[in-house]
């Protein structure tokens, strides 16, 4: 086990996988770093630093700086995947999937299905999402609910360095398009990462805390927030099952339902507006399949139905916080 942060875990996994499989290519805006500047190409790996050193090691044939065009990046990745490559495309900001939606939604997600399983599209799209860095309404959104709603795509949201390695490796070994969502505030999160080959299956929620009084479902940055809430409540004897979904498609419905059947109370934490959200989806699943186990209505801790504000104070108020999660837990516990 080595201690590293999520950025390093992703970077090292890319290095290791590209060494293992010469079909893996990386493309995206500024994935080399410094291209076109006076200083020349630096292989610092873009503004997030996740692709650092790849250009120096694997060269321009496998590490490709692209124009600022999400449709071109995703379209190229989809085509390369059809032609036998394993592209890792990077969207610097997930908010811009809009301009590449046809490539994602109508092409990548549909190829295997529409060609009767005779072709596959092993593309990984790494996209950086999430609020909390004062990046305003167009650079802060969590688009996983949109992507989760598209059959044919797998949607992955690592919250720990170990999961970043395990899930990215799994994504690169599979034959289907994977949306690999990286929360921009989590890159510095440190943790133990297993050495050597390490794969984490999709559709298997991580149990972060266990307890018998309430089920808390979270993903991405919200897992850490919910952990704080759990530890505070544990001191009062309130036990929570905290599930980190890891992947929203496939969804570990079983883990959620099993837990709710025991606790009877559900709090879902989702860093997005509430309507048609992941939280709404899970609330609906639980209400339809575990209705008789529920002792209180499922509580959703989400942002409001508004764009994410730029002002720091407003952004903080927008994002679900440990305090709001605690309030929701107390609400469902006190429900009569």
């Amino acid at each position, binding site marked *: 086990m080595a201690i590293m942060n999520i950025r390093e875990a992703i970077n090292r996994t890319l290095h290791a996988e590209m060494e293992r499989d010469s079909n893996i290519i990386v493309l995206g805006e500024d994935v080399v770093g410094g291209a076109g500047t006076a200083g020349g190409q630096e292989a610092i790996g873009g503004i997030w630093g996740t692709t650092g050193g790849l250009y120096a090691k694997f060269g321009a044939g496998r590490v490709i700086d692209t124009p600022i065009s999400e449709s071109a990046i995703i379209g190229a990745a989809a085509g390369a995947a059809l032609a036998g490559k394993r592209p890792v495309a990077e969207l610097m900001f997930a908010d811009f999937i809009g301009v590449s939606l046809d490539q994602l939604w109508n092409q990548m997600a549909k190829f295997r299905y529409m060609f009767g399983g005779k072709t596959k599209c092993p593309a990984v799209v790494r996209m950086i999402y999430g609020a909390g860095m004062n990046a305003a309404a167009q650079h802060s959104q969590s688009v996983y609910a949109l992507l989760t709603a598209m059959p044919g795509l797998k949607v992955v949201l690592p919250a720990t360095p170990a999961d970043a390695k395990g899930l990215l490796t799994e994504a690169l070994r599979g034959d289907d398009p994977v949306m690999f969502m990286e929360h921009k505030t989590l890159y510095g999160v440190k943790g133990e990462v297993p050495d050597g080959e390490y794969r984490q299956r999709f559709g298997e929620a991580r149990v972060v805390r266990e307890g018998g009084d309430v089920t808390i479902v979270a993903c991405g940055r919200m897992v850490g927030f919910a952990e704080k809430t759990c530890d505070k409540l544990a001191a009062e004897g309130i036990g929570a099952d905290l599930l980190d979904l890891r992947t929203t498609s496939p969804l570990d419905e079983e*883990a959620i339902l099993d837990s709710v059947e025991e606790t009877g109370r559900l709090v879902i934490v989702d860093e997005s507006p509430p309507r048609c959200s992941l939280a709404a989806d899970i609330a609906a699943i639980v209400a339809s399949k575990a209705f008789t186990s529920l002792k209180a209505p499922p509580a959703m801790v989400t942002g409001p139905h508004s764009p994410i504000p730029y002002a720091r104070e407003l952004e903080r108020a927008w994002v679900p916080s440990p305090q709001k999660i605690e309030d929701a837990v107390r609400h469902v516990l006190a429900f009569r």
Partner: protein
Amino acid sequence: MATLKAFTMPKWGIEMSEGTISEWMVGENEPFTKGAVLTLVETDKITNEIEAEAAGRFVRILAEAGGTYPVGALLAVLSDGEAAAADIDAFVANFKQADTSFEPDAGAADAKAPPAAAPPPPAAPEIPAGIAISPVALTRAAAAGVDVATIKGSGPGGRITAQDIDQVVRPVASNTLAGPYPLSPDTDVFASPMAKRLSVLHDVPLAGISGTGARGRVRKADVLAQIQPVAPQATVVAPPVSGVTVNAMSSMRRTIARRLTESKATIPHFYIRRRVRADRLLALRAAVQGQRPSVNDYLIRACALALMEVPQVNIQVHGNDIHRFESADIAVAVATEKGLVTPIVTRADERSIVDISAAMQALAQRAKAGKLKPEEFTGGSFSLSNLGGFGVEQFDAIINPPQGAILAVGTARPEPIDDDGAIRIVPVLHLSLSCDHRAIDGADGGRFMAALANLIERPELL
């Protein structure tokens, strides 16, 4: 024999639902070649020709020129040659129109009887001015005598909903908290979280269970199927009596109940009792400077050494197998608010009293906070339960399966003993050993108690 095919009203575009035959360009039994114009069809939008896709003839024309037919309707019967009239009749009779509609699976819905006329709704109560409230909520509030003006609504725009009224009317929920559980140990087996938790709780190893979940995942039900079902007993549910509070058992309580019931019902217990003088042990303890280990800590050490002398008692029973342990891992009963837990002092035979005392303090603290790790309370080769702190003189304990024996210890009370011919009054401990007779015989138990008594009476050996 000629092959008959249906010539039907085509569907040109998503919206087209019917078409009108303007004119037939060929007659019945008049041969035509591929590409010949057969008929003109008029829709809401266009008039278009239908060309022959292959050479052939119409052996029967069913649609009249000028008639309007739905998409998919049989207009004529195509054939590659002459056909018998009976065959054509049979073809027409058996023709089934293809479903070209966009209705989601109509099917049985058509067969549904029209709903019975609903009774007229009751007159809606008048909604008080200035208060947003649903009519049902208002009716419920009136029935329960609730003043709606004092309620904060949770509906859109603060509207009061029926649920808000229910919340006011119902008594506050009194929750018995189950509290935090220790994290289930990490395992490589592909299993759901609940399956993992149950495997620890019920001591069922996950490896070897074939999962029935998606992609072979081990599910809750798969683990439960491994647990020996306890025959259901007819339980008499007493009617609630005033002055009695009914609390559902916590899952921890249920586990204690299940395990102990199983133990008492399936393990043939026998008991060996013995008095031992404790004066020397207590004197030794009193002489310790600084932080003194508890009497129980000395007893843990004494049990461990006695188990080394009589290894027949240092065992676990698994079905027809007896697992004999090389070290003494002693489970010590600790009372917590939520019930009994038995954290384990591992390798107590190799550890000093001071070491055991420190380990025990840490374990008890974690047990009380509900923070024991599973490996800290699963396993163990022997149990120790001490109720001396409550003034209990003597009691018998139930074996903690799969262990083979448990020692029950009471308080040290002054009693007369025969001390080399003289009668002396010294503190005496009453010990009771419960053994699983499937694996431990009376002689083994007797030897163990003799070794234990010797160690307690000569504490310098500890």
